[in-house]
């Protein structure tokens, strides 16, 4: 297992259902052994990507490569991938061990070997005691684990999971997230995990692939997506963010100013050549996280502006202020997040405050 070699590559993959295009020219490389999460709003094409890789749907255009071999037209039952379906798709007429052993028995593997591998797989998902039950006699979380064991037992190169936790309640979902992650570490198999829940994505993924309207918008670590979103969609979709529209000024070393309704804001462009290369006067957004925004003191010179606190919300460990800034203190809505204090917030609703954020905590996004 080497996290740096590509296991599976999609090249210019497109998919249409009839005349309706659903995926547009997708390029995606999945690394061997990684936990890759596909994240996107409903209808963005996540399931479709999974079904194309699994071979459940034919490609409209493009190619899929596995280990330097094209598999675009390889039939589903020959692909070394297994899927955990959202509705589990357990065979209702088979016991748990029948279900788990299915992938081996259709390959005519000896009964004795099947039995021992089934019990191993059931141990792995902690369901040893349930071998003789039928799926209808299991809870949702248990069914989920049977589906996982059934997929694992064939030792696939890649496990495809389509929102496997969507049907579970919050508590169970947390448990299963940890459980999945620990199993993935244990068996070192590549996981491709679809979800529309970004907390789930952040918590589990090595890398996240953000999709929207049939396009991949960004692929990167949760940290990269959070601090260096490459487009407005990702900046808004992934975590809470403040976006202020403006026009780019000339590059100044590793920083670049942007003229906005809040005045001139300076943001870091370090390590992002496309932001350095963008033309002067191009439309863009300054993006800064609520936790990067703070009350300015006398020493702060950069990125300083004033605003009115419109609302204060206590959210446990942190307190979130909604701030109106810009012309007439009404044009721009911003959020500020600060740690909560036991003796009440230092902010007061209706107060006019002076705010700022550090240039290295600001980021530019082209419009």
């Amino acid at each position, binding site marked *: 297992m080497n996290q740096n070699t590509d296991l599976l590559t999609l090249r210019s993959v497109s998919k249409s259902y009839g005349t309706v295009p659903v995926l547009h020219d997708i390029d995606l490389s999945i690394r061997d052994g990684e936990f890759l999460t596909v994240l996107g709003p409903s209808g963005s094409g996540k399931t479709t990507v999974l079904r194309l890789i699994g071979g*459940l749907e034919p490609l409209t255009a493009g190619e899929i490569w596995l280990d330097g071999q094209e598999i675009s037209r390889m039939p589903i039952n020959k692909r070394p991938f*297994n899927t955990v379906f959202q509705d589990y798709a357990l*065979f*209702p*007429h088979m016991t748990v061990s029948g279900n788990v052993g299915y*992938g081996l028995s*259709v390959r005519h593997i000896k009964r004795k070997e099947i039995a021992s591998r089934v019990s191993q797989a059931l141990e792995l998902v902690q369901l040893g005691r349930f071998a003789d039950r039928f799926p209808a006699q299991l809870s949702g979380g248990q069914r989920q684990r049977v589906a996982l064991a*059934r997929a694992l037992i*064939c030792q696939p190169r890649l496990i495809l999971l389509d929102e496997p936790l969507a049907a579970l309640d919050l508590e169970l979902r947390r448990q299963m997230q940890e459980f999945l992650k620990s199993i993935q570490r244990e068996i070192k198999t590549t996981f491709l995990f679809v979800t529309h829940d970004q907390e789930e994505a952040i918590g589990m993924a090595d890398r996240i692939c953000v999709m929207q309207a049939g396009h991949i918008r960004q692929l990167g670590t949760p940290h990269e997506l959070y601090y260096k979103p490459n487009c407005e969609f990702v900046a808004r979709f992934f975590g809470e963010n403040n976006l202020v529209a403006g026009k780019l000024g000339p590059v100044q070393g590793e920083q670049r100013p942007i003229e906005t309704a809040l005045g001139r804001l300076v943001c870091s462009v370090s390590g992002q050549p496309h932001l350095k290369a963008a033309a002067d006067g191009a439309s863009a957004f300054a993006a800064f996280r609520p936790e990067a925004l703070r009350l300015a003191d006398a020493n702060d010179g950069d990125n300083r502006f004033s605003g009115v606190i419109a609302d204060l919300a206590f959210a446990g460990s942190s307190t979130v202020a909604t701030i109106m800034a810009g012309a007439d203190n009404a044009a721009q809505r911003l959020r500020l997040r600060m740690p909560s204090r036991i003796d009440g917030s230092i902010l007061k609703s209706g107060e006019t405050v002076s705010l700022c954020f550090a240039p290295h905590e600001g980021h530019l996004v082209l419009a």
Partner: protein
Amino acid sequence: MSALPRPSTIFLAAITSLVAVLLYSPLFVPIVSSFFIISHGNVDWSSPTLSTYVALAGNHDILAALRTTLIVGVCTVILSVVSGTLLALYYHGRRSGRSVLQFIIFLPFLMPPIISGLALLIFFREIGLERSLLTVVIGHTVFVLAIVYRTVLMRLQSMSRTLVEASYDLGATGWQTFWRVILPNLSSAMVGGAILAFALSFDETMITILVTGTQSTLPVRLWAMMRLGFSPDINALVALILMFTVLLCVLAARFLIPRQMATERN
């Protein structure tokens, strides 16, 4: 349990029982009277007896007819279950011509039996097929096919598509998927359909009369007996057929209960 106010519940119950009594009480008359002797056209209510049943058991014509009925029934069930299942699978596979096909399957079941029977009769004559038990079996199969087809198709449609996908995904071939996933999930619907088919074949009369050769089935025999006059055996025979049919329907209902409920119970 229901949101209806009490008086209307009572009213509904009254109407329902009235309809039930009016519709179904005639069915009980032959059953009851089969246990009494009829002399000079009047039922002798004084002494219940099983003599009519004993007479029936000694009636070779009737026993032969019963044998014929069973042979026809079993053959019809086999033919209709196999072809009904295949047709349902074809329809479910979204292949071409499916709605025309479905219409044709339903036609003989919906048309008056005499029309179906005549059409078959003419067809057999045209292709030179002698009237025999074979033509009866074909006629019954054409008639009951719709029931088996419908039963199996409904089960197919309620089966999650991902079951089949999961089977392929786990490496099974099409053939393995059919035998190990699709068929087991259809089996109870097939058994239910088979029982209904048998029940229908068992008392099918009109088509049988038209397309049979020299042998007659139980209902046809009954029909012939009736023309000669009303004899006590008829009561017994009707009672027997009635009980048998009811038994079959109860059995069929058993197998057609949705799978979920059936598994939850055990």
